[in-house]
């Protein structure tokens, strides 16, 4: 099973060849050594030898040398369908999870020299995978083109519990000011609304807005708008104009209108809750062409 991590792969073939069931905790594996043609005066076609030693505390003792083949990374380039996609990976070690995702080859950081990925000049990156001399399973080197993409969704979304969607205020039982006036057109009251400067409403301006609201509103507050002390609902007394002027797409406002006034009711006035937006356009000029 060459896809296994290097030590697991070596152990798999040891057990396969000897009908054993060693585990990784039973054995210590030496650094691999290169062999070529013969080893201990015996002809061999294998390219690597390691010494397997019984781990302290294991039910075994002694050691044994085995020969086997480390695979040449260069051959990866010849495998059809071999590709790796990754986003914003700086170096070879960072690429290891993506290689596992796309090829099933489980390199470890001990297998590969860690070098930066380089810009390939075509929107892709180039990675040079070079086997560390002490890698148990791999030798050689290969260049890989790393195309952008391929981040596993569960890596990109590590927090699946999302904070929303939200209503305009924190209290779900509110009547939301931002929604309440969204559909109303205050253009008829342009001369009154447009002249009001940011700040706390004067009593006169509050009265003007009450008049406008009572005329336009068809919802639950239609007859209730007021400008009096102490009322906790539909009351413009002490309300503050946050802004008044050109509308903006950055505001949660109705973009059918050129102007908008943002109005916060006074503290203690809880209905409607949150910022209200009064939308209006330039008044119609029948002589304009």
């Amino acid at each position: 099973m060459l896809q296994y991590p290097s030590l697991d792969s070596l152990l798999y073939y040891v057990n396969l060849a000897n009908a054993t069931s060693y585990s990784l905790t039973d054995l210590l594996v030496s650094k691999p050594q290169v062999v070529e043609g013969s080893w201990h005066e015996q002809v061999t076609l294998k390219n690597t030898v390691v010494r397997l030693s019984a781990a302290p505390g294991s039910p075994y003792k002694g050691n044994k040398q085995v020969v086997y083949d480390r695979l040449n990374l260069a051959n990866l380039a010849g495998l059809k369908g071999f590709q790796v996609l990754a986003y914003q990976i700086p170096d070879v070690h960072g690429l290891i999870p993506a290689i596992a995702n796309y090829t099933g080859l489980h390199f470890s950081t001990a297998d590969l020299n860690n070098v930066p990925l380089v810009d390939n000049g075509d929107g892709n990156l180039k990675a040079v995978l070079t086997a560390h001399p002490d890698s148990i399973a791999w030798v050689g080197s290969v260049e890989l083109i790393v195309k952008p993409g391929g981040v596993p969704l569960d890596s990109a979304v590590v927090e699946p519990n999302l904070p929303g969607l939200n209503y305009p205020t924190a209290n779900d039982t509110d009547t939301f000011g931002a929604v309440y006036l969204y559909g109303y057109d205050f253009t008829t009251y342009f001369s009154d609304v447009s002249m009001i400067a940011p700040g706390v409403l004067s009593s006169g301006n509050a009265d003007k807005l009450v008049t406008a609201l009572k005329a336009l509103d068809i919802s639950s507050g239609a007859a209730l708008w007021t400008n009096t002390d102490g009322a906790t609902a539909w009351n413009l007394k002490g309300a503050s104009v946050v802004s008044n002027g050109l509308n903006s797409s950055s505001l949660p406002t109705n973009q059918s209108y050129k102007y908008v006034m943002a109005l916060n009711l006074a503290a203690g006035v809880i209905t409607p809750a949150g910022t209200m937006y009064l939308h209006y356009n330039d008044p119609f000029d029948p002589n304009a062409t």
Partner: protein
Amino acid sequence: MTDYRQAQTLMLYDLIEKSNPGFKVSYPVGSVVFGVPADLAINPNDPYKNDTTVRVTPAPNTTGIGVVSVNYRRVNLATLFRGVTPKLTDWYISTSMPATVWIPLFVAKYGLSLTAADVAGLGGITSTGSVNVVTKPECLCYKGTVNLAWTRGVRPMADIFTDANRALTGRLYPGGNDFTTPGRKPQGEFLAFCQDASSIGSILEGVSLTGQSYAPTDPMVIALVDFLLANTSRTDWAARSAATGSGGISNLSWFRYVLPNAAIPEANSAKYNRCIVITSQAASWFSGKIIIHYKV
């Protein structure tokens, strides 16, 4: 505050990005597909009160891999519109407005991003009536129901003026505005319009109201030729056929109109209550209509 105006997939994209910075880099908009959302029992310990879960997978033919489920909260229309009476006052050609019309009007007026695919039933609204806007279970970002009323409004002028260039055509001088055309005939409307033929009005009262051709010897033809010779600068008026030479006015259709008259608006005049209209033919020496005003 959620921007309800955004397309629902974008609302969810933003929500994922908020908790998972960089998500949009790895998965640009359009590179994932949201499955059918499913209700989720609200965990009392969940500060977000999430009530929905949806499966996210890479879009076909993209480079993404894997799958993940995210939990979020859908916007309940009944909660969002608490205290609000959603109502349309738009004009529609019929007294029954179909869902394909009221859904876009509703979302535009109230800043939502519902589509017809999100709404169950898709019933129409009758004028002065209402409809329940019921979201489908598979709607990604909305749930619940709200009642939408409609009072049929007045028709907007823009609906009537449908020409893209708002251009009016056909406002031309009789015979057209090109006066340089070789061989262009004299225009009848300009030959005698300003003349007051009241002095021969009693004679012209004999002209047919329904149109008739008169011979060169007819006393009305002779009287009118004499009048035109005496009162216009043209010197070739003659009691002959209009097809045989310049100035002839017989053998054409003569009409008498009582003014004002919608059938001949170009002849209406505050000064006169009668007119004779002599209509040209292809062989005539003039084009259009000679209009003779008089008062009785």
